[in-house]
């Protein structure tokens, strides 16, 4: 809507401290969604080295696993993917009109589960470096 004066971001994202569960779920879902889209490109890039020959593919993967940053990124990717999946399930229920009264609880549950799974995965991803 047109404004006769500028209230700036204050009205929307400047108020993030006042966001409620549903809004946070939306923001995080969008964010993780875009991260996953970005990942898809690197994923395809890495996979396409297999079109050269098996050796190149193995070498690429092994090389990447040598980089500490990549290991951390993998943990991040897992967190992002898990949250997106869990919140996706929450949204499925929202779309089916089931348990809308507990959508905020479902969001917090998704967060807690994501955190737990991510922490549990750290030994696997960072181990043997």
């Amino acid at each position: 809507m047109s404004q006769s004066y500028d209230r700036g971001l204050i009205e929307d994202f400047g108020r993030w401290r006042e966001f409620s569960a549903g809004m946070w779920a939306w923001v995080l879902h969008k964010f993780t969604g875009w991260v996953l889209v970005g990942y898809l490109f690197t994923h395809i890039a890495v996979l396409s080295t297999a079109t050269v020959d098996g050796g190149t593919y193995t070498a690429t993967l092994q090389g990447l696993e040598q980089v500490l940053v990549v290991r951390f990124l993998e943990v991040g990717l897992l967190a992002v993917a898990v949250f997106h999946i869990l919140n996706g399930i929450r949204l499925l229920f929202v779309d089916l009109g089931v348990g809308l009264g507990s959508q905020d609880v479902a969001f917090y549950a998704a967060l807690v589960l994501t955190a737990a799974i991510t922490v549990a995965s750290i030994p696997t991803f960072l181990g043997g470096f």
Partner: protein
Amino acid sequence: MSTQIPEQETETETETDAEQESSQTRRVSAERTRAGMDQRAEDELSDADETVELKVFRYDPEVEGKKEPRFDSFEVPFTKGMTVLDALIFARDHFDSSLTFRHSCRQAICGSDALFVNGSQRLGCKTQMADLEWPVRVEPLPHAEVVKDLVVDMEHFYDQMESVEPYFQTEELPSGELDEQRQDRANREEIKMSTRCIWCGACMSSCNVAAGDNEYLGPAAINKAYRFAMDDREGEDMTEHRLNIIEQEHGVWRCQTQFSCTEVCPKDIPLTEHIQELKREAVKSNLKFW
């Protein structure tokens, strides 16, 4: 009140205020001079056990000193059961009679005093000062054009409400001339919550999608559509007509289930739930033609 905007609701408001002021005059029978006003404020403040600070948004494009938006602070004596609206009324009647805001019923039924209080859309008359963090910050509704102080232009909101044809229409009249058009209890229950809307605009103001898309019907209008689309008495053809309206490009499908509207609705209408249900109805009615 110096409001000169030729709009219906502003005019009504001016009347209400005038009325109120005259009764105020009768009640206190003090001379309404500036000194008298200040004196009264001072007395009441010193009598009070507790005072609360109110930070109120001020803006008036027609007044020289108020062209730049700013916040004014008012110290108001706190009384048990005091609402945000009560505090605003105190500030207006004791400190600055040009402080402008809409109100009428003071009991959450007229829908004229939706405000942005401490960062969230609430009805002034339904929000207890005791429940808020102090100092209390009062602003006009976001995503609407401010006319003056706390008064925003509601025209766009009303347009969206009108566009869903918010009235009962039916082709299925009962056969006997004196027959009543009955609704069964289950159906009444289904639409019960949706009938409670008081057109306050809080939901529309809280919605991020509505803020970015001016044509989006918005939660209140969709809820209105739900109220009639779900009403069995309207008959199938009418329901289909209603679904066509809410299904258009800027209709239900814009909703991204952020739950902001449901969160702020002062009448506790499960708006997101209704929007979701209409989405499903829309899909169902389309699948029939396959």
